[in-house]
């Protein structure tokens, strides 16, 4: 009970500081929102068009492209080209004023296509050409049949339509080799898990400053003059840091689940990751609290260490896009194992059993850090 009283007081002190409230509750959710809004979900290129103006064939082309791309109409081609240059749209199609008339007259209509010189531009060009062929091709074929066979355009269109229906459809099957890394992820899923890992550790580690403050104020020494043993005092302090980290982790789980419909996979598994990784953060905080002499020193180094480990462990950029050597290095961070455990649950539909190795590694981190911290802290507070 005494240890719980120490832990409760640590939580009370944390939430008494309004800046902590911001960093525990507001900032992580804001980052999840920003990252999800910027990088989450599928990227839909936008194609600018000019000269549509009720032209039926141009309208058909736009309708075909609209299924896969965003469409933005421009009044003149200069504005559309400027939009491409500035990256507002991925490409622009400039239709002539008389596209349908030209096609019906059997002439080749000239359609402008402007894009950036990159691979996505070439992909859009292929899609645009396909749409043009599908929209204008039957009309051009009917005009040609009408002229060569001496039949009316209406009859020619029927002949072309009949011929087209006689051609067997070509099925194109698309397969992905290997694992699809980020397939079927919601807009906020990746950002939510990586930010949870980052903030749970950061909040836990910054708690080392409060531990040092207790020592500097003489409160820790006074606690030892009570009936509470040194072991109980240290256990209470660990419990306090752990409580803060777990509280924040569960908060992020629940808020992102409710507000952003984030898929956390197996809820028991997600909770287990938060508990184990929170303990790593709390243990690291105890070690920092035992090693550093003043709270400013501990606070500053905690932030740098937490952000550095988060970056290395895949909380800022997924480790899957690291080089193989960096992926190997990432494995030395607890963040890697927490992030990978979430990936197992969310992206690979894993269960608690599948993340047991990850939980084991995190537990090992906690044991090592905590053992060193307790040894050091007992020396510091009882001398």
């Amino acid at each position: 009970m005494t240890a719980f009283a120490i832990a409760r007081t640590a939580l009370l002190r944390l939430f008494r500081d309004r800046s902590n409230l911001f960093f525990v509750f507001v900032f992580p959710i804001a980052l999840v929102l920003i990252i999800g809004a910027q990088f989450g979900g599928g990227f839909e290129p936008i194609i600018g068009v000019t000269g549509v103006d009720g032209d039926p064939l141009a309208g058909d082309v736009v309708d075909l492209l609209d299924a896969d791309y965003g469409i933005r109409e421009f009044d003149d081609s200069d504005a559309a080209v400027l939009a491409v240059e500035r990256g507002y749209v991925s490409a622009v199609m400039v239709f002539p004023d008389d596209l349908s008339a030209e096609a019906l007259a059997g002439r080749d209509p000239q359609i402008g296509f402007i894009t950036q010189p990159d691979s996505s531009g070439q992909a859009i060009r292929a899609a645009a050409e396909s749409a043009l062929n599908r929209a204008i091709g039957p009309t051009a074929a009917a005009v040609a049949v009408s002229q060569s066979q001496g039949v009316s355009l209406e009859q020619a269109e029927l002949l072309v339509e009949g011929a087209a229906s006689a051609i067997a459809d070509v099925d194109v099957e698309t397969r992905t080799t290997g694992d699809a890394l980020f397939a079927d992820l919601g807009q906020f899923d990746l950002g939510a898990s990586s930010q949870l890992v980052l903030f749970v550790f950061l909040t836990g580690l910054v708690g080392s400053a409060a531990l040092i403050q207790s020592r500097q104020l003489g409160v820790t020494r006074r606690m030892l003059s009570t009936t509470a043993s040194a072991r109980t005092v240290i256990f209470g302090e660990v419990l306090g840091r752990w409580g803060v980290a777990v509280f924040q982790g569960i908060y992020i789980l629940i808020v992102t689940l409710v507000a952003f419909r984030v898929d956390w996979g197996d809820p028991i598994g997600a909770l287990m990751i938060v508990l184990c990784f929170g303990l790593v953060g709390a243990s690291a905080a105890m070690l920092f609290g035992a090693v550093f002499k003043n709270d400013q020193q501990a606070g500053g180094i905690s932030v740098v260490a937490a952000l550095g480990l988060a970056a290395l462990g895949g909380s800022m950029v997924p480790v899957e896009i690291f080089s193989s050597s960096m992926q190997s290095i990432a494995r030395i961070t607890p963040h890697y194992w927490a992030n990978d455990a979430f990936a197992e649950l969310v992206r690979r539909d894993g269960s608690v059993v599948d993340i047991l190795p990850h939980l084991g590694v995190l537990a090992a981190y906690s044991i090592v850090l905590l053992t060193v911290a307790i040894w050091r802290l007992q020396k510091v507070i009882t001398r």
Partner: protein
Amino acid sequence: MTNVLDVDGLKRSFDDLVAVGGVSFSIEPGEAYGLLGPNGAGKTTTISMVAGLLESDAGSVSVAGKLMTTKSSDAKRAIGLVPQDLAIYPDLTAAENLKFFGSLYGMRGASLNERIMTVLEMVGLSDRADDRSDEYSGGMKRRLNIAVGLLHEPQLLILDEPTVGVDPQSRNAILESVEGLSSRGMSVLYTTHYMEEAERLCDRVGIIDNGLLVAEGTRRSLVDSIGQDDTVHVTATGNLHHVAELLRAVEGVVTAAEAHGVVSVVVDRAAIRLPSILATFTEAGVSVVAVEVSEPNLEAVFLHLTGKALRD
């Protein structure tokens, strides 16, 4: 009757530095005992061992008959420590601080809340119970520091230089609080390097220097031990030279001299001899304007025993 505190041959060194070199003293129930010595004399190290914060190299501490070590919770329950540092959380209210420390003693619920109000009343902070302690004045923080030590109703209250860095008004309030506790029968161990505080608060005083208890006793017995006499300064008008001659014949008077309208009389125990001294002035037809008695104090005792001033 069992002593509240028995300290026997306590020793503690830090590497080559002997902080406490064999200190022994005891405190009876209801007694206020002062450890008087300059900074670095070994007071806080002694207190740390008495409070179970530090293991001794040799010797023993027994509180209310229970052996004190860093692990002995029974003995720790019998003491209340008021450390030199303000060992309270500044971002918590007085009530929250007290609730926290009370819970460390296993106190809970209504009895804890009741006790919190009682100790806040005792130190005059009951109307500020729900204010954060960082909004308190220095003196109020010191009083809260004392309240924490009193919370679990200890048999012995240990105060380690509680008035260091406190303004005169707050200092007086703290001394009054400690006097009040003593008058209610609480045993007190009080360390200080202020001679006046030890004289005012303590029934007995132990003088500590270089980790050794160099003398111990009541203020009077300590003063007597150095064999110095009281001095009576009498401001008067008349033939003072003649009076001085007469006074030298009075029993107990060691010497008497006149200078600048004041007769200074060195006497063994002024309180007893004062009536006969004043009667001598009357017999000589000299009008007495003012009388001032100065006794040798603990400062003089410390100087006599250690050859240095208390605040060196």
